[in-house]
């Protein structure tokens, strides 16, 4: 029986603002899928060593390389992809050389609307298409992309639609069409958004969902709320603590004081999570807050296991 799980899509863009723990989620999701016997490629899209650092390979290589069992990693250098592209299509060698090394083109690549982004997306598309020459099966079951955090994380995904009207003809236009098809095909691509249980991040996650689905036609799978305070105390215990908190002789007891802090934060977080759950069309998945500023590998493995036994089972 084929179960239509949320994460049957092969290309997963993990999106979210900086500081939400997006990179950790990419790594954990990669590990979870790899443990489920899927071949996974995790992709870094900008000059950033965060993902590589988690896997102990800084920076990630510019060609896919092994990070662990069933898991590969790659960092996309859009300028390099663009140069390769030009070499492929500009058949006269010295002209290609001239273009790649000209200052005008260098500036054009920075300034041209979305050229860099569409090159990054094309590379992801190529990874998606890649097949094992012997078995003809797809080389990667999942391609998990750590999307850039700027412009609500959407700037990268918005590019093909904007670009289609600008580049009307030529190979880049054709390539943009292929990328667009991949992004908008909900059987191939999905988005996983990562946010925090606070007012502004939740607003942004909701806005993000609306824009992605209504304007860009790219399907969301789920929103992960990261760094959620766990439910340490049950309702009766909360009541008992609140009663104690009012007692004069307990005012400065650190046991009670710390409990009060936990309860207050958790209450606040739950208000925001409830709003997200009510307004979002997709499942909301929570990941816990760890009592440290630097996640250790065992904590990432712990998150991976929660994703594997929870998120990956969602339908």
């Amino acid at each position, binding site marked *: 029986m084929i179960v239509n799980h949320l994460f049957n899509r092969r290309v997963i863009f993990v999106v979210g*603002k*900086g*500081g*939400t723990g997006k990179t950790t989620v990419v790594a954990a999701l990669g590990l979870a899928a790899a443990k489920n016997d899927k071949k996974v490629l995790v992709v870094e899209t900008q000059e950033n060593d*965060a993902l590589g650092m988690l896997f102990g390979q800084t920076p990630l290589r510019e060609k896919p390389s092994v990070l662990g069992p069933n898991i590969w990693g790659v960092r996309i250098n859009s300028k390099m992809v663009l140069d390769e*592209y*030009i070499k492929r*299509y*500009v058949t*006269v060698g010295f*002209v*290609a050389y001239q273009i790649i090394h000209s*200052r*005008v083109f260098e*500036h*054009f690549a*920075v*300034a*041209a*609307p979305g050229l860099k982004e569409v090159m990054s997306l094309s590379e992801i598309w190529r990874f998606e298409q890649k097949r094992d020459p012997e078995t003809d099966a797809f080389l990667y079951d999942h391609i998990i992309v750590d999307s850039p*955090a*700027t*412009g609500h994380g959407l*700037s990268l995904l918005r590019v093909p639609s*904007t670009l289609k009207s*600008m*580049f009307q*003809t*030529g*190979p*880049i*236009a054709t390539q943009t069409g292929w990328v667009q098809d991949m992004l908008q095909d909900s059987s191939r691509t999905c988005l996983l958004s990562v946010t*925090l249980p*606070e*007012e*502004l*991040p939740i*607003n942004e996650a909701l806005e993000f969902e609306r824009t992605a689905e209504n304007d860009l036609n790219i399907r969301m799978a789920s929103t992960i709320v990261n760094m959620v305070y766990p439910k*340490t*105390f049950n309702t009766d*215990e909360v009541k*008992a*603590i609140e009663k*104690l908190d009012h*007692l004069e002789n*307990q005012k400065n*007891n*650190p*046991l*009670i004081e*710390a409990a009060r*802090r*936990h309860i*207050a*934060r958790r209450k*606040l977080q739950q208000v925001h999570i409830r709003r997200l759950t009510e307004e979002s069309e997709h499942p909301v998945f929570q990941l816990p807050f760890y*009592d*440290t*500023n*630097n996640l250790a590998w065992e904590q990432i493995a712990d998150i991976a296991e929660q994703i594997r036994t929870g998120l990956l089972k969602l339908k």
Partner: protein
Amino acid sequence: MLEKIFENNGPRIIACCGSGGVGKTTIAASLGIIGALKGRKTLVLTIDPAKRLADSLGLDSFDHEIRRVPPEKFLKNGLNPSGELYAMMLDTKRTFDKLISRHASENSQKKILGNRYYEHLSSTLAGSREYMAMEKLYEIYHDHEYELIVLDTPPTRRALDFLDTPQRLLDLLGHQFFLKFFRPYLYAGRFGFRLFTILASPMLKSMSQLMGNRVLEDVAEFFNLWDDVMFEGFRKRAKGVQKLLSSSDTLFFAVGNPMARPMKEALYLYDQIRKNHIAFGGFIINRVHPQYPENILNNPDFSNLTDIDKTLSEKLLFNLKKFRNLGNSDATAIEEMKNKAGAGIPVVQIPLFDTDIHDIDGLLKVCAHLS
């Protein structure tokens, strides 16, 4: 700790930089309140405030005008600032349009504003938001309307982007190589600029085969107009903006939180600020957990807690341990930062509050730790 900056000979501009999600807007708004309380006519220039905070400052998200924060908001808290507090939400595209209309003739204005490439440049190109924040700052500064301007910088992934990306925009708009490249092939047709004799340049021909003619024509038209009417004015202005940022009237703060990445970003930012000879006011570390004494778990005080059962007492202990770990983790991170920054650099800590900061009440709590 930051008292000094609000004295009469203090900076006229305070800029809050930092990576996204660390609470720059809250800090900027709080610094603005202190300015007003110290008797200065203060403007907070913000980018993307949380709705409730914007509401509480009297800002409407669809309105990009300067608004005064109603004095009643302070009176409610028993305060009567001798200065005035104003706030404004920045609109990148409008600031850019205004810049064009300041320098270009009416006819060229229309052409530039209608150019497809300008559309992209002014709204989505990396750096335009950052540069326009500085541009607006420059304009308001030279109006001499406000005694203190607090700038909340755009949310970027990396703290440094605020200083970094405008340069890329300036490189692009401040050089004439595009024009040198395109002009020989450009002629003004009835419906705008066209590239002709394109075949004369094998490079241009290949580029147009790759990307299509239209993109090249849009870009060529834009730079042709830009160079004719904007180039000199813009370059002079950009120099003025950069000079203002490195003048003694401007003070930069690096805002962060104790998590590994924002701390690293803040330090990196400080490094670059120093290298660019910009005045640095210090680090503001937001959302710091309280630190408990090291031996707190050795003799937990369960006396008077006779009502509670074993499970709950274990949970209380477990929870306290977590908070102690968090407090320690934050303290270590801040200590490390102090060592790296060196002596004499202020590091201000703002505690993590039990409630969201979304009104003047909350901001005043932050103020208490800033001054």
